[in-house]
């Protein structure tokens, strides 16, 4: 597709250059010469010379004046005559120069387009490779997420069967049964995580007080993450928001921060206004996102967690939610001192 487009552009450029070349060649190049070489110009100059010759007879006292005018006219006539005799050679040279200029231009355009095509091709390959690598990683993660509980459940089931065959005590049988149930629950959790990614609903927007929402969140979830303290810096603004979905975004951000911040974590929410635009900055004091992941942090399955500890879908879901709000979720900054995410709300979205 890229190649076809590049070729089309190249052909269009060549056609345009050829047309321009033709126009210049046939409509312009000889024109200025032909103006000077028009027969009537020559005839007028010859008549003028003849007139000067007649005048010298009528007014002999001014003979020198007429002579000078005659010589001037003849010099001009001679120059035009020299031009006329060289017309074809001059036009050929002019056309050759034009051809060289156009050829160089066309060559430059072709080289530029070719380089652009190669660059796009390289970029396309790199993107493809990145996609395949990402899918590989996803497949690996999926396999591991399923294999762990599946293997454990199978072993527990074998143990349960063995215990039952041997006529083990009810307590022992119940423990084995619960163990199988736990592993199956892990599988169910994994499936739920996917379901939540696939089933992010459209927001039902209502005008709400952002300050109040943040305050409620900090109060309700104060103990949700034991290592994370939630701070609200105050301030208020009215935004169009779906309470439940917005809360899910905040939960996702806090879950990530709680993992990154360690024992003494802190998440600070600040409302920022820029004209009609309302934003909420969520700043943590965690160890930051590795630079290599920053550009892809909102891509699904991108995570710093080990396999089995999460799928890396939280930020992806959160950004989707905020985009559905007519706003966005951006990574504002990230360093060893912490990370700031900015939630932007849509203006007049409801």
């Amino acid at each position, binding site marked *: 597709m890229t190649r076809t487009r590049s070729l089309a552009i190249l052909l269009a450029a060549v056609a345009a250059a050829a047309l321009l070349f033709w126009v210049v060649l046939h409509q312009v190049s000889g024109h*200025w*010469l032909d*103006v*000077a070489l028009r027969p009537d110009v020559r005839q007028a100059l010859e008549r003028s*010379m003849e007139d000067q*010759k007649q005048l010298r007879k009528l007014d002999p006292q001014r003979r020198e004046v007429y*002579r000078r005018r*005659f*010589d001037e006219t*003849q*010099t001009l*006539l*001679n*120059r035009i*005559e*020299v*031009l006329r*005799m*060289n017309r074809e*050679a*001059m036009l*050929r*040279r*002019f056309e050759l*120069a034009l051809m060289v200029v156009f050829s160089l231009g066309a060559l430059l355009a072709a080289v530029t387009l070719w380089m652009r095509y190669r660059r796009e091709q390289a970029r396309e390959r790199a993107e493809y490779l990145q996609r395949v690598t990402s899918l590989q990683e996803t497949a690996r993660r999926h396999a591991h997420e399923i294999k762990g509980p599946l293997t454990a459940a199978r072993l527990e089931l074998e143990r349960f069967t063995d215990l039952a065959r041997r006529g083990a005590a009810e307590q022992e049988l119940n423990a084995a049964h619960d163990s199988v149930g736990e592993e199956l629950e892990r599988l169910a959790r994994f499936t739920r995580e996917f379901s939540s990614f696939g089933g992010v609903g459209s927001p039902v927007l209502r005008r709400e007080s952002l300050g109040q929402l943040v305050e409620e969140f900090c109060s309700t979830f104060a103990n949700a993450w034991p290592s994370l303290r939630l701070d609200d810096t105050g301030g208020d603004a009215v935004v169009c928001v779906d309470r439940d979905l917005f809360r899910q975004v905040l939960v996702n951000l806090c879950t990530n921060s709680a993992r990154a911040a360690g024992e003494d974590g802190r998440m600070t929410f600040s409302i920022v206004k820029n004209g009609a635009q309302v934003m909420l900055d969520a700043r943590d004091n965690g160890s930051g996102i590795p630079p290599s992941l920053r550009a892809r942090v909102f891509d699904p399955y991108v995570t710093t967690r080990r396999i089995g500890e999460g799928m890396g879908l939280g930020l992806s879901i959160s950004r989707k939610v905020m985009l559905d709000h007519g706003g966005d979720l951006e990574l504002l900054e990230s360093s060893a001192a912490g990370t700031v995410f900015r939630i932007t709300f849509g203006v007049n979205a409801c």
Partner: protein
Amino acid sequence: MTRAALAALLLFALSARAQQRPSFTMQGGVVSAALPSSVLQDASVQKQLGSGLTTTFLVVARENKRLSGVRLEVRYDLWDEVWLVKRVDFEGKIDRQRLASREALEKWWRTPVRLLSTAADRVLLQVDVSVLPFSAAEEEDARQWITKSGGVGTAAAGGGGIVDALIGTTISARPITSFRWNVDLSLR
């Protein structure tokens, strides 16, 4: 096919006969040549002679590997209606004359011109006459004129100046016609 070839040969022979040859003389080790009137009477030369420009006849004689040249310049002065002629022989001697009529011009034309010096008794000579439509001075004047003005602007006007210079340097006096004779001259 054969007929066409024979006809072409016949035409060539007739034209060769019609074309007069120069008459050569050798005296005191100097070869002189009187150019034929047919050169002056050639249609393209006739037309050029009346243009007011200086028609230049370059006569180049080749003997073995030696080269010798003579220049004849003819200009019709449209003001005084006289012929201004100039002859530069192989030694660089210049002869200028002002001729009042066409007959005087023809007479001057037939005057032998010193072509080359030689110590040999026998000379195999190739003589070429190229007729240039204007003189070097007129060529230079026209070149300067177009380079400076180009008829459209000044030389300082960027790309226009380049184009004018490009075209100006193309101007040159290309022969409008030429003649060639091969002669075998001997003192004996």
